[in-house]
């Protein structure tokens, strides 16, 4: 088969597994923060509409967290974008050019969303109805970003479309509208965002159990309910996405490829585990520990999904390009330097995190599960 795009001029600077591993791990972290930002915006809007004091308290908690979620979503979005360009540059750049103006408008949408997020976080009390307007601006902007990214990343796996699309519209005003899996893919990401953000709401509820037990209990239950609803719905949407793929692709996750099947089974296992644990925590005298386990399972689900996504992309591009067989000229010295600097930065960031924790100590009160505030209202 003639490659629809020509190869890059330089060899890969490191073995593909290293680039791929770093890219997917940072992408998983990016998704977690992005989920809190996108899902958190939606949940904050729901709470703002409901309007009771407990809703507004939960909404305010989300609004205050949005600047951090957004900052880290952007910071962790840079790394996977870098690694995907190294590994799949010829497909990525070509697909981006095919939808160029819409791709570039992502920057404007992000600036708009980020500005509105700070506006919300700093003016929540004063805004009243303006909250909904600002939340709508953030939500629509972030949805636009996700929509274009989904188009880009599906289009880059369809090299056979490239030439025809380019000759039809060299100005780039087009999308990958013919992609059958686009809608379930978008819904899957959106529901995933709600699930992770609702876990965040539940976590904030747990933190409030000591000083404001009623608010804490309600908030935890609200988060847990949203998590359960969105996760169950997402399983159905996920199956729609999976079986919307051609047979030779979905069958990879159904036993045809051992690695892909293990990842898929693992992701489903962790999602179900998270669901069960989140609800077990409600009846437990030690909800925090169980919640940490539930949140860990949810994080592992996201990691699994990210690796499934990578496996699917590899399968779709294999007729045109096999990263594992690409020429490599490893820069071990530079990779080692990156490792050393990364570890040093981790130490520094741990120090920063400790300072931040010292600056914002958790609210004091009797310990949970020792006759103090219990999760269940036993009175």
């Amino acid at each position, binding site marked *: 088969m003639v490659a629809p795009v*020509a190869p890059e001029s330089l060899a890969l600077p*490191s073995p593909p597994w290293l*680039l791929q591993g770093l890219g997917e791990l940072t992408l998983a972290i990016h998704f977690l923060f992005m989920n809190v930002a996108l899902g958190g915006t939606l949940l904050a809007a729901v709470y703002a509409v409901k309007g009771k004091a407990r809703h507004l308290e939960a909404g305010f908690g989300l609004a205050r967290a949005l600047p951090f979620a957004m*900052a880290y979503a952007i*910071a962790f979005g840079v*790394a996977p974008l870098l690694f995907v360009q190294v590994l799949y*540059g010829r497909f990525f750049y070509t697909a981006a050019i095919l939808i160029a103006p819409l791709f*570039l408008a992502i920057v404007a949408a992000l600036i708009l969303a980020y500005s509105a997020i700070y506006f919300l976080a700093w003016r929540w009390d004063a805004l009243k109805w303006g909250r909904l307007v600002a939340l709508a601006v953030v939500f629509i902007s972030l949805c636009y970003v996700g929509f274009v990214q989904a188009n880009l990343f599906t289009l880059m796996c369809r090299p056979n479309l490239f030439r025809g699309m380019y000759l039809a519209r060299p100005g780039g005003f087009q999308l990958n509208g013919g992609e059958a899996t686009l809608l379930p893919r978008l819904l899957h990401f959106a529901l995933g965002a709600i699930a992770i953000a609702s876990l965040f709401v539940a976590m904030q509820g747990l933190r409030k159990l000591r000083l404001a037990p009623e608010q804490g209990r309600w908030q935890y239950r609200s988060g847990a309910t949203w998590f359960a609803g969105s996760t169950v719905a997402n399983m159905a949407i996920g199956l729609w996405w999976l079986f919307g793929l051609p047979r030779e692709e979905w069958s990879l996750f159904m036993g045809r490829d051992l690695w892909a099947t293990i990842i898929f089974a693992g992701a489903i296992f962790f999602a179900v585990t998270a669901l069960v644990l989140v609800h077990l925590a409600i009846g437990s005298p030690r909800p925090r520990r169980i919640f940490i386990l539930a949140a860990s399972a949810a994080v592992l689900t996201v990691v699994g999904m990210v690796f499934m996504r990578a496996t699917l992309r590899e399968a779709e591009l294999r007729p045109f390009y096999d990263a594992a067989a690409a020429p490599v000229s490893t820069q071990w010295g530079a990779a080692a330097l*990156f490792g050393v600097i990364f570890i040093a930065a981790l130490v520094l960031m741990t120090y920063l995190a400790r300072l931040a924790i010292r600056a914002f100590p958790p609210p004091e009160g009797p310990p949970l599960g020792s006759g103090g505030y219990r999760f269940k209202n036993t009175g």
Partner: protein
Amino acid sequence: MTYPVWYVPFGSAWIIAVIATVHVFISHFAIGGGLMLVLLEATASRHDDEALKGWLKRRSRFFLLLTLVLGALTGVGIWFTISLISPAATSTLIRLFVWVWAIEWVFFLAETMAILVYYYTWDRLDPFAHRIVGWIYFGSAYLSLVAINGILAFQLTPGRWLASGSLWDAFFNPTNLPSLVARTLVCFILAGLFTLFGLAFTKTGPRPDLVRRSLLWVGIPLASLPLVLFWYFKAIPPEQRLIAAAVPYFNHLALTALFAMAAIALLAAAVWFSRGKVALRQFAAIMLLLGLFGFGSAEWLREDLRLPYLIVGNTYANGVAVSALPELRSQGLLATSQWSSVKAVTRQNEAQAGKEIFVMACSQCHTVRSRLIPLGPRLASLDEGFASWLAYRTDLMRGGMPPFPGTAAEAEAVAHYLRVAALPEAISSDGASVFRRRCGVCHTMSGSFRPLARVFEGEKAEDAVSVLNDLQSFSSDMPKWTGSETEKSALAQWLVAQSNPAKKGAS
């Protein structure tokens, strides 16, 4: 062509110019401003100056917004834009420098965390720990600049990398250090300018001690900058300097940058010596704007120093790899590209072929008839033969043009397309106009780039006509004269008059 070309009729270069100017302005300020913030905080702490601390707290909110929202996202914007406009060069840079970029990302991550912690922990941490956070922010931001500066400098002076292919040769290239020192000084200048601007608009009025401190941050690095820029220019290979100096608007950009620097210095001196008697708000605003224009012009100039390349010696400005040129010249751009609808120029498809060639080979820097270096009007004011020759021999033109990446027939098609698509410039037959259209594209009269003055020294107009009649005897690269006899006569007289000032006016 490896990649398709995103065709923007008004010129894709505008997009990168706007985003890059905003980004470099903010990102350099973000570094210098970070240092200034933490040093001023130390001053406030030392003197128990609560007023200054309060001002710094409010200022750090502005700083957070400007750096995290606009600074970081316009940085992503530059990346997106170069991916769309110069995908081949971006791919080369990404593959070569992936670990440098990954290291830069680590610094960016630390920088993001540090500025958030810094802003949100005012009065919640002890002053020393808070200042440490500020130092971590400044250190990460500066190291981020160190990483990116090496890559930017590499594009202009890849140095030994062209032969060795080594990452370290690429990164530690000849202009890396002077460029880094120059950028460091710019960081301080912008920090001073922004702080002065902030002070001018405080409700309680500017504090004279802080105004003077800001002026020192502007003045001292500004005074050292010319020397560092001289060092930078000396580090550029002479042949690259010669090409760049022949870019027609090179002098305008250089003069704008120099004028802005001089004007900032004068205004800073006026504020310093007036001791509060000048309108600080107006002065500070003008100085900040001058900083934007001056710095923007200098960055644009730096980009153009690379011409005709994006990566000197490796990738031309239109994205064509230097190594791919021979094949394109012999096989043709249309035949070898996957992004062309026609594969060879015929009489029937000449217009379509010309347009596609223009998009692939020229539209990265030029437009057909918009404001950004339009080619149509210029070629429409020439006869078809000369226009086609020019299109094919772009490598001879002054101004850092890359070689035409196609066959002579393809050059003819693109020239035809451009001539038909635009109205000609107002044509005058006076000698100066003929020189500009016919000779000035490759020569200067008395400048350093293929000057003609010596050729016609001591000559008469009749001799000049003879020279024009027999141009190819000078060099096989010269085209035949294809203009009218009237133009030839006017040009001959003008050339002689310009080359022999005493004889001006003689016929």
